[in-house]
């Protein structure tokens, strides 16, 4: 080991705990020969049914086909994964294959030299994947990760509640949405479920409105110029405020989590609210966190985020993201080959069949069985533009500030023109 690495390891040991050092010790010296004995350390966040056993089976199959390779799987819960990865990466020892959303966080890992540039390794087969899905993992023209799942955010709604309130077609404009909220309230229904404690679900509204009002270009420009203090972003806050002022959210929403038994997903799954703005995983989480474990079944529908009158953005631009894997800098030679195996059409179909994954391999689209997933996939396929979640696309500090600031807007403690200043201040400090 070089002096550089031992210094890092010492820092890791001192600051972050001994686990980092142990990991550092297993990571080194394995790259090179793809036929030598090697172990792939794989961290993923599909730590529950249905994907957990599917990943495990695929790893087993790979081990059987390549008896020199051992795949050590570490399934982690989303938040636990983030904390654990932070510790490992700060100690300079990332796992060999790990969950990544691409964007600003991946960029930081790239800058620190923690992930491998796999552009050349994946060149033969990367064309099989959806270009929009690959975009967040492509930084400065180089590929640092491979997405296995891609989706978009949109409104999931309860058809029964909409029928009861006399709403015949899903709202296509923001004004129509506000109107629908009024009708739902009049019918005695909670119009919108929102997880205020988790903050990120709230940022979807602000981001989508900014996209519809300013267009994709506005979001890109804001990131480049580190300036969100523009009329478009203020207008996004004001439009969102129109919705907030109607008091459309469930009781105690400021303290609600997304996935807890009393959270946003459960409220929808138990039929307690008419709609939520959420990603492709919404039906699965609604079902698993509902009391019946089945959600609202075929009474659940999907419509894309409405257009805003006079906005520069088009209603067919999609906002969302997916899941993928990045390859750690000390990963053994077979890691990319293993990753390729996970992304093969057959395996992507298997993943899609669970209903928890929307495949990125174009040929595997026919594996999507769930009708709601098919709608999301179709909307995404016809999308005119794509924007990654802001809390992943931007550097982490900016993303978190957006979440925090939008939460303040929702709680009514800050005005739309104040939050853009707060976000700009953080963006400029990066």
């Amino acid at each position, binding site marked *: 080991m070089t002096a550089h690495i031992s*210094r*890092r390891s010492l*820092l890791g*040991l*001192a*600051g972050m705990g001994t686990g980092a050092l142990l990991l550092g010790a297993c990571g080194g010296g394995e790259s090179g020969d793809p036929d030598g004995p090697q172990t792939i350390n794989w961290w993923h966040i599909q730590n529950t049914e249905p994907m957990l056993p599917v990943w495990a089976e695929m790893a087993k199959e790979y081990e059987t086909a390549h008896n020199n390779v051992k795949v050590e799987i570490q399934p982690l819960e989303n938040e636990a994964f*983030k*904390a654990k990865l*932070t510790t490992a*990466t*700060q100690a*300079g020892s990332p796992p060999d294959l790990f969950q990544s959303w691409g964007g600003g966080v991946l960029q*930081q*890992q790239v*800058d*620190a*030299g*923690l992930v491998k540039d796999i552009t050349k390794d994946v060149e033969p087969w990367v064309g099989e994947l959806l270009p929009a899905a690959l975009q967040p993992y492509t930084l400065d023209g180089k590929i640092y990760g491979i997405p296995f799942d891609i989706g978009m955010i949109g409104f999931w709604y309860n058809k029964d509640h909409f029928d009861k309130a006399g709403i015949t077609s899903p709202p296509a404009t923001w004004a129509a949405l506000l109107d629908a909220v009024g009708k739902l309230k009049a019918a005695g229904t909670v119009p919108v479920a929102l997880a*205020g*404690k*988790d*903050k990120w679900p709230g940022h979807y509204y602000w981001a989508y409105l900014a996209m519809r009002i300013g267009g994709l270009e506005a979001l890109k420009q804001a990131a480049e110029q580190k300036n969100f203090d523009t009329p478009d972003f203020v207008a996004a806050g004001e439009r969102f405020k129109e919705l907030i002022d109607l008091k459309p959210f*469930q*009781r*105690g*929403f*400021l*303290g*609600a989590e997304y996935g*807890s*038994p*009393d959270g946003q997903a459960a*409220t929808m799954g138990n039929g*307690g609210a008419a709609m939520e703005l959420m990603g492709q995983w919404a039906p699965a989480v609604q079902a698993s966190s509902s009391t019946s474990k089945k959600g609202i079944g075929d009474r659940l529908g999907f419509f894309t985020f409405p257009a805003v009158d006079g906005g520069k953005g088009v209603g067919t631009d999609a906002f969302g993201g997916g899941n993928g894997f990045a390859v750690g800098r000390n990963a053994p030679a077979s890691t990319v080959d293993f990753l390729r195996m996970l992304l093969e059409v057959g395996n992507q179909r298997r993943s899609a069949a669970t209903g928890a994954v929307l495949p990125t391999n174009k040929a595997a689209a026919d594996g999507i069985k769930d009708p709601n997933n098919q709608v999301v996939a179709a909307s995404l396929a016809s999308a005119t533009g794509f924007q990654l979640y802001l809390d992943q696309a931007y*550097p*982490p*500090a900016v993303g*978190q*500030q957006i979440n925090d600031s939008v*939460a*303040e807007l929702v*709680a009514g*403690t800050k005005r739309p023109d104040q939050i853009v200043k707060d976000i700009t201040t953080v963006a400029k400090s990066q």
Partner: protein
Amino acid sequence: MSPSPVTGLRRDVAVPDLAPAVPAAHSGRRDRSRGLVTIALFLAPALVLFLLLVITPILVAAYASMYKWNGFGLPEDYVGLDNFTRAFSDPVFQGDLWRAGILIVLSLVIQLPASLGLAMLLNQPLRGRSVYRLLFFAPYVLSEVTTAVLFTLVFSPNRGLGDALSGLLGVEAVFADPDTVLFALFLVISWKYFGFHMILYLAGRQNIPRELTEAATTDGASSWQVFRHVTLPLLGPTIRISVFLSVIGTIQLFDMVWVLTGGGPIHASETMAVTMFQHGFRRFEVGYASAISIIMFLLSLVFALFYQRVVMRRDTEGAITTRGVQ
């Protein structure tokens, strides 16, 4: 260093008396140095661990706190004390200090007196006394995370019994309202820790010889007077320790808040440790987070030193001033 003639309590709470380990102090230089070698040998393992796991991280954090550093690679962008001035001008961190102050005051004014009262009550001959003691102490055994999850369920806005009850009083969804969340949090902290303070007081109370209270009663003191002029002063050392633990615990409060509210809504229940975690692990501003941790460390250190020197002076007198003197 003898036990106090009055209370029977050993008063060397803070620093163990090392003197007996040097029995050869009077018998020549060689023996003395051999004694020191022995001490060094015995101390070494603990000292190495202490240096590695306590002192080194503090130094690393102090070093990192002067850099703008995202935690990757080595810190390079030196910013001096900027992170510290940023903390003190950040409304969230100012709020953290303010909230810590409120929680400390609430603890001292409500939680500790209540525990003391309960301890006095459970010192009386009472049917099923030990059952009550056990019950009241039980919450302390739960981990903070378990406690937090439990209360999330109890006060869940749509299905919690606690929320239904508080609704009758006109307070709804206490953890979702920025105006009530801190007090709700205090309630949970008190629920978890009152049993611990109660046991401390109970132990202190039982160390007070019965003769003293009996004598006071014989002299015609009312039960309030006995409490006020005999029990309370003799409980002094215990109360001072209990206050100390309560304050230090509040400065470092994290797990419970993190699970219960995540510091929200809109920072209304955020503590210094939560702010530190947010910046260190969410925003990757490790330099700034280190600065916050150093501020927490200094606050605790200054408070501990001040408190031991001034408030607990009498309790620790023997331990500090007679150290090394035979």
